[in-house]
């Protein structure tokens, strides 16, 4: 009879939580991709309800992410698992799940407020979105590595910083361009508002990365 360690009752629960953590990470990285597609769809001016579909998709992922996070937290506490890094893991999961909520908020705000993005700014808006999404994806990879391969966390965190820096530069460039244009002030401010929001997404992802660096040091001590 072939009995795998995973099938033993002792590790059954552990395996289930491992799977839930992986699922949560999948939710966030899928959400980030949908967010990017959604923003691009809006910028390209597709008007057939596609954006609303994507908003629904990202919202479903956020709900699923919240459910998974709560369930993982419950298990970690009730089963008294990983006593020394429990607090760190819970903060990490909450912080990284917050990124998905933030992305959903931004996308929803764009579809509700429908800012006017002219052709001259479109490419930079897309670049900014891509940089912010890459920051999130690198943070998710770093978080995955935190659980399985602690030495790889550093490499991913390097990418998080790189993409966040990139997002900052694009945001500054874009804001200069917006305020140098001859549009009315309210239009300028409206666009600046969304530039800041997208840039904040990258900043928040970098914060997750900074905390993750500390958690990793604690784990390797």
């Amino acid at each position, binding site marked *: 009879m072939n009995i795998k360690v995973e099938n033993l009752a002792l590790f059954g629960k552990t395996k289930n939580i*491992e799977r839930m953590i992986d699922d949560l990470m999948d939710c966030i990285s899928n959400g980030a991709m949908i967010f990017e597609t959604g923003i691009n769809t809006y910028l390209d001016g597709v008007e057939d309800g596609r954006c609303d579909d994507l908003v629904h998709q990202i919202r479903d992922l956020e709900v699923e992410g919240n459910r998974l996070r709560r369930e993982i937290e419950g298990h970690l506490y009730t089963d008294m698992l990983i006593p020394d890094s429990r607090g760190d893991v819970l903060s990490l999961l909450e912080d990284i799940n917050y990124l998905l909520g933030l992305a959903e908020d931004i996308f929803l705000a764009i579809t509700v407020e429908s800012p006017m993005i002219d052709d001259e700014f479109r490419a930079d808006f897309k670049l900014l979105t891509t940089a912010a999404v890459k920051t999130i994806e690198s943070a998710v990879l770093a978080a995955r590595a935190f659980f*399985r391969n602690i030495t790889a966390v550093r490499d991913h965190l390097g990418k998080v910083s790189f993409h966040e820096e990139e997002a900052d530069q694009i945001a500054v460039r874009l804001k200069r361009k917006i305020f140098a244009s001859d549009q009315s002030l309210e239009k300028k401010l409206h666009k600046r508002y969304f530039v800041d929001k997208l840039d904040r997404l990258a900043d928040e992802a970098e914060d997750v990365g900074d905390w993750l660096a500390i958690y990793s040091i604690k784990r390797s001590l």
Partner: protein
Amino acid sequence: MEITVLIFLTSGLFLGWSLGANDAANVFGTAVASRMIQFTTAAIICTVFLILGAVISGAGAAHGLGALGKLNALPGAFMAAFSAALTVYWMTKAGLPVSTTQAIVGAIIGWNFFSSSITDLSALTKILATWVACPILGAIFGALIYKLVMVTLSKSRIHLLRLDGYTRLGLILAGAFGSYSLGANNIGNVMGVFVSSSPFSDFSIAGLFTLTSIQQLFLLGAIAIGVGVFTYSKRVMMTVGDGILPLTPVGAWVVVISHSIVLFLFSSITLEHFLASNGLPTIPLIPVSSSQAVVGAVIGIGLLKGGKGIKWRALGNIASGWVTTPIIASIVCFVMLFFLQNVFNQVVYHEVRYVLSEPVLNHLERSGVTVAELTPLKDREITGGVPFRDAVREVQPRLPGELEEKILDAAEIYPISISDDKLMSIDADYLSPEQIGALDNLVGLSLLHKWQLYDTLSRKSGAWRKLENNKLNKPFNKHLDEQLNYVYGLFHQEERGAKS
């Protein structure tokens, strides 16, 4: 069954309680302090395996007795056990991990001073050597294993949660094994001295298996140890696991494993015999203490990490506890013996007499001792080991310690009388039929010294003959020594009438 035996038994139970409250912390301290195992879970596992170890494996070595078995009067043994227990209790109250064995050795030294007996130098060396060797060995193993585990873990990419599961399982298994060994090795010290006066009789459980009186006695002792674990060990556990250096769960496991390896490698006669019989170089056997190995392993990990996290003050307190434990135990024992003897009129020791008679001198000459200088002492009966040794030193001042010990052993008067009724009560499971047969032939024989019985027996039967003294034969000779001690004790006669 005298009531006094029951009173004396309480000191054994107190000692058992102290052992549980202190020594058990070595096995589960790091696991509990790193919150990997709850205190209650640890206490339950520890108690169950302590009891199993004491009853299953402890009883097997019952005839070897514990260190306290050297004390020749029950009230004296009671007081030594009580002093040791009291000392360990104080140390436990201070949250310091100490070794119960060292407290016992300290108490025996106190008894030796009181009874003018000679303190076994190897016992003193044992204490001093463990202070130095054990923490160092523990630290080396702790650091090496920690490094190895960390490298392996970084390559194996185990999920954090899976690693948590493995570590927990590892801590439970190592803790259970450690508790089993603790029970098996230390029950002799707790209850060994009461074996000959066990108030229990054998009984069978549902006809399936029988609990001998010794096993019942050891069960009682093990329960006392268990009560100690439950009621008082948490504080020492926190000192061991968190007081010196906060440990990660993997670090906690490394500490438990390093301590087990140190104990196994440097105290296992089985391993030495295995290496010697395969023509491999043996590891020198040195006395080891689990408390010191655990503390050493924690320091080893701390130093590997750069030594910043180590709380040196806590470490200083622990080390001072190691030094003071045997000293306090010996002083307490000495003072208490004085009261027990003079206020309560109890016989706390039987005087040991020495004589260098013609047969003793001949025996010594045969075993390579120059006896010419000893003739002034011939046929002079001297009471007490220390006065006799002083007398020997007077006539032969520069005698090596080894020869001095030989003279003391040979000259000790220990009347032995082989009688039928005592032969009937012999433990047939412990001695071979050939050994019992050899004793059977000696019925009616009275002797004055232990070596005379050995000489007679070894002439009569090969089963009583020691093998050449080398590493390969060490376990056999050690076992034979234990059997001989059992036989000496069994046929020992208190009255002075025996003649050789």
